């Protein structure tokens, strides 16, 4: 890698200043600052190693970086730095580079000795910590190493912390608590560098589910953010309840998670809805959306995405699949825990919401056209009521209908079959495709639509195929026809 040696040098001063400022990171302020800089510091240490790799011995290194000893030494005493991700590796690599195999003078000899001491400080018994020697002797007499000891020790500490946090049932009457809010806060910030350490998962879970009864959030925002990051990047796995709790407590994390999902989906080619559904389900957002608060945030973000992309059909498809998965998750919920529909769609006409929420699979196919007529009629009444409808309301109503794409697909299908009176269906579809036209001209507009709707039709065909597959609808002939059409469109689009 082509290395610009001046770049690390500039940052060197910066990082040394930081290391001095942080000390051993004993104050909350310094701890928060360290946590903020951990990723960049790691990057810097990697770059430093790349530069030092070719340098032989400490004297040459000191010529290039006079203060390197100070920097590395100080960082070794900062447990936040050592505990983070791969920083400890990079730090130890740098130390190895500084070691001289043939020390030419007392300075180099001393430097060598100091490097060994630092490494012992990091890995076994530190000569600067008085209580470690005893333990080390005991352990090695038994035939174990510090690796065994610290493995057990960390697990025990986690176990103790979890027990302490859990034995804290919030009893409305008894405010006596064994754990103070500031302590929980302190624990949460100390966990930030350790999030990807597998031992920590039980503690992460317990912290996320911890409710101290105080209305204010007691977990550090840095902690919540870092857990969210690690979860989104799939570096850790957490139970659903813990993730839900995280998103409920920290809306920036929820927003980030939703945007991350959209990002992911936009980069997949929309060839298979299975893939889309899989990605969405993995994100845990549909399941989490059973909480109305989460649902509303996600919904807003999707709505904005739709507006920003001028109603791109990819985004519409994503929203529709999401809504389907959300409904499935909600259906699987325990009756007692279900929130009423009004909680998710507070501003909408409830009968319309209920009608749209009915899955087509719940109704016999013969009653579909009647159901669609109901929906169409309700919509018409809402939209044409000039007292109530503003442009915003219109958009909101249109968006609501859009979310429940299943019924629209069925409307289109029924229209293609031409077995029923088309008026209501036509009105519905016209509303879907161009909601802003004058009401009377809506039917006209649908028939004379000349704009390129191939993409929409393609999406429609995809959705129909998906639905047929998953609900076992449609006979062989229809399925065959559908697949043929899809193939034609794949070639064309």
């Amino acid at each position, binding site marked *: 890698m082509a290395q610009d040696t001046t770049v690390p040098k500039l940052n060197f001063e910066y990082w040394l200043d930081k290391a001095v400022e942080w000390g051993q990171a004993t104050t909350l302020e310094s701890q928060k600052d360290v946590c903020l800089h951990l990723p960049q510091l790691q990057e810097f240490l990697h770059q430093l190693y790349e530069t030092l790799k070719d340098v032989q011995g400490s004297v040459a290194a000191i010529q290039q970086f006079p203060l390197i000893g100070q920097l590395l030494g100080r960082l070794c005493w900062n*447990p*936040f730095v*050592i*505990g983070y991700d*791969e920083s*400890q*590796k990079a730090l*130890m*690599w740098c*130390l*190895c580079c500084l*070691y*001289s*195999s*043939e020390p030419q003078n007392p300075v180099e*000899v001393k430097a*060598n000795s100091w*490097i*060994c001491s630092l*490494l*012992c400080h*990091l*890995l*076994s*018994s530190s000569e600067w910590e008085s209580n470690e020697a*005893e*333990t080390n*002797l*005991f*352990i*090695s*007499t*038994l*035939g*174990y*190493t*510090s*690796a*065994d*000891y*610290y*493995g*057990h*020790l*960390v697990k*025990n*500490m*986690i*176990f*103790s*912390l979890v027990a*302490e946090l859990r034995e804290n049932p919030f009893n409305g009457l008894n405010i006596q608590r064994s754990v103070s809010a500031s302590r929980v806060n302190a*624990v949460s910030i*100390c*966990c930030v*560098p*350790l999030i990807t*350490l597998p*031992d*920590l998962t039980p503690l992460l879970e317990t912290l996320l589910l911890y409710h101290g009864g105080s209305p204010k959030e007691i977990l550090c925002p840095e902690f919540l953010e870092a857990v969210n990051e690690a979860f989104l990047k799939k570096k850790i796995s957490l139970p659903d309840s813990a993730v839900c709790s995280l998103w409920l407590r920290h809306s920036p994390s929820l927003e980030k998670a939703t945007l991350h999902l959209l990002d992911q989906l936009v980069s997949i080619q929309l060839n298979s809805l299975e893939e889309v559904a899989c990605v969405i389900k993995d994100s845990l957002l549909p399941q989490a959306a059973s909480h109305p608060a989460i649902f509303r945030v996600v919904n807003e973000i999707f709505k904005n995405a739709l507006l920003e992309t001028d109603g791109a059909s990819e985004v519409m498809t994503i929203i529709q699949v999401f809504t389907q998965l959300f409904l499935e998750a909600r259906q699987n919920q325990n009756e007692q825990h279900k929130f009423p529909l009004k909680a998710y769609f507070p501003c909408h006409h409830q009968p319309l919401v209920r009608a749209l929420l009915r899955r087509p699979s719940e109704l016999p196919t013969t009653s579909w056209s009647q159901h669609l007529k109901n929906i169409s009629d309700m919509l018409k009444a809402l939209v044409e009521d000039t007292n109530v409808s503003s442009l915003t309301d219109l958009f909101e109503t249109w968006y609501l209908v859009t979310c429940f794409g299943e019924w629209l697909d069925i409307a289109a299908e029924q229209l293609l079959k031409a077995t029923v009176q088309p008026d209501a269906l036509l009105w519905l579809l016209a509303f879907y495709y161009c909601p802003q036209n004058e009401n009377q001209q809506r039917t006209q507009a649908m028939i004379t639509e000349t704009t390129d709707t191939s993409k929409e039709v393609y999406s429609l065909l995809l959705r129909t195929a998906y639905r047929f597959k998953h609900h076992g609808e449609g006979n062989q002939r229809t399925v065959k026809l559908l697949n043929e059409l899809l193939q034609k469109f794949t070639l064309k689009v």
Partner: protein
Amino acid sequence: MAAVLGRVAELPALLALSRSALVRHWDAPALDRALEWARYFQHVHDRFRARPQLREALGRRLRRAQPCSPPLGFSALGRCPELLGLALLENRALPPAACRRLLRRLLLPPPPGAGAGPEPRGLALLARRKAAARLLALPRRPGGTEPRVRAEAQLLLGRLREEEAQEGAGAAGRPRWLCGVLERLPPPRAFAVVAAALALLGQGSGAEGAGDGDRDGSGQDGNRASAAGDGCIAGLLLSWLLGNRERFSAFCLCLPGSLLASLAGHYSQLSRSYLDLLTGWGSHLHYDPLQGRWVKSCLEKAELSWEELRERFSCLCQGSALLREQTQAALKLLKTRDGDFKVRGLSVWTDLLMEVEE
């Protein structure tokens, strides 16, 4: 196999060497050879861990090779790269050239294609965990076992269980090395560790070995055997404690009443001896009418004061039903022997019984 046994017998010597000043003669190739040996031993461990008979044979051979000090078991073969690597890192007598080679092999990622030494990843995890231990350090919680002490107890139990599994009951050499090991810790620490170990055994923490993975005893037999083995180990620890009167007295003085009560609940030999001890201390108190309370007859002696004694007896009475009955019965008997007074200030046992029954 004979060749393997022969080589394995070299391990204790190799480890001893790596901790001694003799390494000052090592150069980089010598160090490489040592690390290769360590890798070889680890390989032997991985090959034979699932074969009990061979494993036992190797374990026995190892033990024969070490006349003194706690012998290494079969599991130590698996930890060889770390054992050796860290021992050499701590050894200041290692010359620079060899040390540099050690650091590169231990810590740097291996160049592609070359054979690896002990996994650098393992040591990075160690550094991370050590930092985690500092980050998560808790203030001492009363009543709970401190995590450090618990970790030490877990390692001790791991070692004892390994011995137990391999040798079975009745190995005369064991108490000797146990004493030696425990005496390397300062007394308060040693007592805390033994207490924690007994507590873990009492809770039936069967699966909490020291992670050496040698407890392949699967199925019912394995569990029964390990339960019986745990019983033997508990017996061993108790005999160390109870064997020496002064030691036991110091043990009971330095540990909190609640912990001792919980242990007494699990181990009847302990509860008997503990009650005897408390009885002894109690009988040394006399009533000072001027101060209106019970005081120690001789302030220098390492014994409990009235308040501490009362606390100890309360803890005992808050234990299991059996323990409570035992304690109250003992107190009642003492009270009767003392004259069966109903009024305070005449017999320490009357007073204690009154406090405890409140």
